């Protein structure tokens, strides 16, 4: 009798089957309908030539076409260039700023954090519209006025193949570090003071402390920012879509934009689905490599 009671009690404490499922029901249905089903469908669509009324099965044709398409390789190269120019620079800038904010009082830190985070709050479309005017090709354009101080003649920043990519990169440098700064600051504040004290006793200077204490401690944070940064950067295309449309001469066509155009400008859903799967595979491989080579002593 007594035993069954404890057993029942234990069961009541440890199993919440009914309510457990009930609480996740909506989330699970939404996930199945709007994530799982589309992902599975993406594989099916990628093997088809999509027509609203009955699609044709074409096998791996969409993949073959993609791999022989020069534009695909060009867009991949553009994405890679954009990623290499933005992600490391943004991480470096965020690290630098976070280190420089640390010696000040909490109030000062908060003010700077808020300012640096502000562009992340503004809508992407609004920022794109503003930057479009900052890069105005006329002599009166803000950016042209700025570079004329350094003796550079006015450029058609977004309209020339040579400068279009650089313009998008510059915009990223100045508007997408807010999140990383805050994350770095949180991690910096988590380093125990005793490490610095021990270093002081050993007579370490600022840069030695930075190199032997701060950088190793922030490695997991850096890895997190690097992986999420690269993943994000490989999907970026909103600014390119709104500001250059991928031009001039496809100089700013990123993979994300190529997929978007194939899907919603040319309505080649099959091709777009195939390319999106290729993009997913590339992102997966790159993330894996980053974890493999940088994350050997980082646990998540």
């Amino acid at each position, binding site marked *: 009798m007594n035993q069954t009671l404890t057993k029942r009690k234990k069961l009541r404490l440890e199993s919440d089957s009914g309510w457990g499922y009930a609480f996740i029901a909506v989330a699970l249905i939404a996930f199945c309908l709007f994530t799982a089903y589309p992902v599975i469908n993406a594989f099916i*669509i990628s093997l088809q030539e999509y027509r609203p009324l009955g699609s044709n099965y074409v096998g791996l044709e969409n993949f073959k076409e993609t791999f022989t398409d020069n534009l695909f390789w060009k867009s991949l190269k553009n994405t890679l260039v954009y990623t290499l120019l933005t992600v490391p620079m943004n991480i470096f800038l965020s690290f630098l700023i976070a280190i420089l904010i640390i010696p000040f009082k909490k109030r000062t830190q*908060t003010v700077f954090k808020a300012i640096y985070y502000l562009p992340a709050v503004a809508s992407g*479309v609004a920022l794109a519209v503003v930057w479009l005017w900052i890069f105005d090709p006329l002599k009166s354009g803000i950016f042209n006025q700025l570079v004329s101080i350094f003796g550079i003649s006015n450029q058609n920043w977004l309209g020339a193949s040579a400068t279009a990519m650089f313009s998008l990169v510059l915009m990223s440098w100045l508007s997408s570090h807010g999140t990383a700064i805050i994350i770095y600051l949180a991690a910096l504040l988590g380093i125990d003071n005793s490490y610095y004290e021990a270093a002081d006793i050993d007579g370490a200077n600022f840069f030695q402390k930075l190199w032997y204490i701060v950088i190793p401690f922030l490695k997991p944070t850096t890895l997190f920012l690097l992986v999420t940064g690269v993943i994000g950067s490989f999907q970026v295309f909103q600014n390119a879509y709104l500001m250059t449309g991928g031009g001039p001469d496809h100089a700013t066509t990123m993979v994300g934009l190529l997929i978007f155009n194939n899907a919603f400008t040319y309505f080649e859903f099959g091709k777009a689905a195939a390319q999106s799967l290729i993009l997913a595979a590339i992102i997966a491989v790159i993330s894996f490599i980053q974890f493999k080579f940088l994350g050997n002593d980082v646990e998540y």
Partner: protein
Amino acid sequence: MALYNNNFKSRWALLLRNGLIIAFLVLFALATIFPIYFMIISSFGDPVEAGAMSYSILPGKISFESYKFFFNFNQYTYDWLLNSLIVAACITVSNVLFATLAGYSFAKMNFKGKNVLFAILLGSMMIPGQVTQVPLYILMVNVFELQNTYTALIMPSLVTVYNIFLVKQFMSSIPKEVIEAAKIEGCSQPKIFWYIIMPLSKTVMAVLAILTFMAAWNDFFWPFLVTNTMDMQTIQVGLKNFRFANTTYFAPMMAGATISAVPMFVLFFSLQKYFLEGVTVGAVKG
């Protein structure tokens, strides 16, 4: 003692160093907020065509003519703001409710398949948005025929995996003794959730609400894809339309951009603490 050595021989050296650092930080801060500053002060200019004006980075006169110009662009301008508000509010409410429920369930309840399900959800966060974009569009527009409806704008964002993850991380820190004690007293799970978990989770719910509202308000591509008439568009899509229809009207465009961005600035400055907290909750491992 900290990272920085503050034992300078003279006070002046310390002041000089801090001054240099502040100067650099301010310079970088100016570069960061310049576009936003430029947007706001330019929006108070007159709605003349770009050829007839010159840019000024100093505030000149203040006129609201450009705002009038933007709102008179067509009869739907107010609808854009209203649509954005409706869509963002619905998405926020549903995310707060369902992500909190699911996050609690995953963090504190025991049921078969819990870990597998959560692993699947987490794994799905790695999938780039482009993969689901096309099938989701076909599902909503061709299969459900929901083009141009609030349902199509809201449904796909009903509850996001990221938010569930956020809540689960937070709830892991609630001691399980509290819940066990309530269970022994005969409290049912919905009651535990309502009377114990929700009051303890106000912070994470606020963070989640704010980040979700901001993301929904600023979202551009999904509303752009599933709406095709002016009266159903959100402010972000409307702003893009306005830009293409009036490529040379500089100040009204800035007024439009300001209108689309300012509600979020107001929200940010009034609830700054939660915004900044929200950034780190998901990133620092818990």
